[in-house]
């Protein structure tokens, strides 16, 4: 591929991000604008923004790469990523909007009336955020290496720089516009090339090199345990992701939070058709990419390989732009929510502190990204979902729906989940992918129930610690807002 293509695409996306960000900044005037976009964002914008933030490197590059490697087994990933939003809608969306809490630590502190719970939750949230940023940076490193031939660190460092600049400069309003723009960019960047490739292939009547159902590397199909564990992680991990939660405050009330989530489900369903299509085309027409260990770069390489020439270069540029949109949007969403948490707990919550925290939130995972290897992107993000599902999910679900939750139960549950799931991740990494047994490689099926069990048991044992405010908080979470006369 022409190295200039990748560079131009990256610079263009970064500039567009910055321009929309600064334009948004100019029209943010009030405190409300700065924090939560004044809740004037219409549901379609808001849903696009949620989609833009959610669709990360794993969705953009990883899903197609995994489908290339393991076929129908990998199709469960996008199903789980989407169904996770269904669970979020059912159990979390409206109550969380009504809670008025702005971050997950704020929610647990308000619900359980305990500063210690807040601190433990903050630690877990920061861990989740950092773990989630690392695969984004790996994706950026891979993209820059494959498309321009520059060393890997250039890609991840560039993403961190752009994110720091935009986050430090802008508020949530500009971020909402940026994220919404990036959803549509990502969709276009995946859909147009793969449709073109299909048209060209149909036009010259190219015969497939390999049948669709056969794994090109001869990888064995996954067992029932892996599927179940993966689904547990994805279904229950989504509702605890810190950067997704903040987005719900741009809705005016609980009911519109639900409406927005419904639109998000539609947007995600449409989006995931295209990585699936790319993966299928890759299996049939470019199976050799799987052997050379470039599976994650499949969507980047496909247009150049199957079309070539100037049209191939143009389509590649579009895909690279989409990929960077994915890294930038997810990373900046995570950095915003992490710096909110870090600045409040570490720097006393000043704007200077927020900026310092933003830099800290972005630079630490950069260090991780330099010292770790690029795993399969969809797989490593799947592990982050397992960690979230084992730590934040039990506290959030039980906090919203069960009066009996206590601070001791919440802390015990989060620590259990973090130790079990984090331990499994560390041991699994040391043993190496492929060598670790299934229960270590996909721990969610046992760590999530364990975390739930510990939370409930300890809460029942410490019944006396149920906060006095529980009735007031519960009614705040669930009682619908007064309908507004002007509302249509």
């Amino acid at each position, binding site marked *: 591929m022409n190295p200039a293509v990748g560079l131009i695409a990256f610079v263009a996306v970064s500039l567009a991000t910055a321009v929309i960000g600064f334009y948004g900044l100019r029209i943010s*005037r*009030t*405190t409300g604008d*700065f*924090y*939560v976009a004044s*809740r004037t964002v219409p549901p379609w914008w808001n849903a696009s923004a949620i989609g833009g933030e959610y669709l990360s490197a794993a969705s953009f590059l990883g899903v197609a790469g995994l489908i290339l490697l393991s076929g*129908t087994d990998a*199709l*469960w990933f996008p*199903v789980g990523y*989407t*169904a996770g939003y*269904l669970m979020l*809608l*059912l*159990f979390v969306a409206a109550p969380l909007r*009504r809670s*008025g*809490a*702005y971050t997950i630590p*704020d929610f647990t502190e308000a619900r359980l009336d305990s500063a210690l719970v807040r601190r433990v939750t903050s630690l877990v949230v920061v861990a989740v955020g950092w773990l989630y940023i690392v695969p984004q940076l790996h994706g950026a490193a891979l993209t820059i290496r494959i498309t321009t031939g520059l060393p890997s660190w250039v890609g991840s460092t560039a993403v961190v720089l752009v994110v720091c600049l935009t986050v430090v400069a802008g*508020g949530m309003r500009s971020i909402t516009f940026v994220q919404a723009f990036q959803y549509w960019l990502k969709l276009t960047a995946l859909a147009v090339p793969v449709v073109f490739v299909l048209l060209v292939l149909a036009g010259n009547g190219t015969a497939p090199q390999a049948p*669709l*159902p056969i794994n090109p590397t001869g990888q064995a199909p996954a067992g029932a345990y892996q*599927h179940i564990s993966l*689904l547990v992680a994805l279904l229950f991990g989504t509702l605890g992701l810190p950067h997704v939660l903040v987005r719900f*405050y741009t809705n*005016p*009330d609980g*009911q519109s939070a*639900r*409406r927005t*989530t*419904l639109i998000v*489900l*539609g947007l995600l*369903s449409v989006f*995931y*058709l295209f990585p*699936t*299509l790319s993966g*299928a085309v890759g299996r049939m027409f470019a199976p050799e990419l799987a052997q050379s260990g470039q599976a994650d770069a499949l969507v980047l390489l496909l247009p150049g390989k199957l079309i070539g020439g100037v049209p191939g270069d143009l389509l590649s540029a579009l895909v690279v732009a989409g990929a960077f949109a994915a890294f930038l949007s997810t990373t900046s969403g995570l950095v915003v929510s992490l710096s*909110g948490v870090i*600045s*409040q707990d570490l720097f006393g*919550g*000043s*704007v200077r502190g927020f900026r310092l925290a933003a830099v800290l939130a972005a630079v630490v995972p950069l260090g991780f990204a330099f010292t770790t290897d690029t795993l399969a992107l969809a797989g490593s993000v799947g592990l982050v979902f397992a960690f979230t599902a084992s730590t934040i999910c039990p506290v959030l679900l039980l906090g919203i729906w069960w009066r009996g939750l206590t601070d001791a139960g919440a802390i015990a549950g989060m620590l259990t989940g973090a130790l079990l799931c984090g331990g499994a991740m560390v041991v699994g990494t040391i043993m190496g992918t492929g060598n670790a047994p299934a229960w270590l490689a996909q721990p969610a099926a046992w760590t999530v129930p364990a975390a739930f069990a510990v939370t409930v048991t300890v809460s029942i044992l410490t019944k006396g610690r149920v906060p006095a405010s529980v*009735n*007031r908080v519960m*009614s705040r979470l*669930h*009682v*619908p*807002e*007064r*309908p*507004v006369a*002007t509302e249509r």
Partner: protein
Amino acid sequence: MTRVRVTAPRQSATAAPGRLPYPREVAEDSDAGRIFIRSLIRSQLRLALVVACGFLIILAVFAVFLVYGPGVAETSIFGIPLDWLVLGAGIYPVIGLSAWLYNRAAARNEARYRDLVEDQ
């Protein structure tokens, strides 16, 4: 419009103006109000659990059918194997439909609660 200097991240987002929660004070201060709230929470939880379980059962049926269903491996539509079609596209409408049904039912539960409180 006045300019406001933002000095610290807010800990709690307040509801938008004019959208204060429904007569919460009334509801919390009487026994009847507390019962209404409890039954609202219970009916919303039941609804969420029913939709979640229904969806998971459909998912499980799909999965079992794709593995053990007679002739699934050989079936293809327009040259696309059936399992690819079901997993790659067929499940998404089910997710959307579950979400849509849930939204309607949840709004209905809340409307019922409002009617009860207004009657008080």
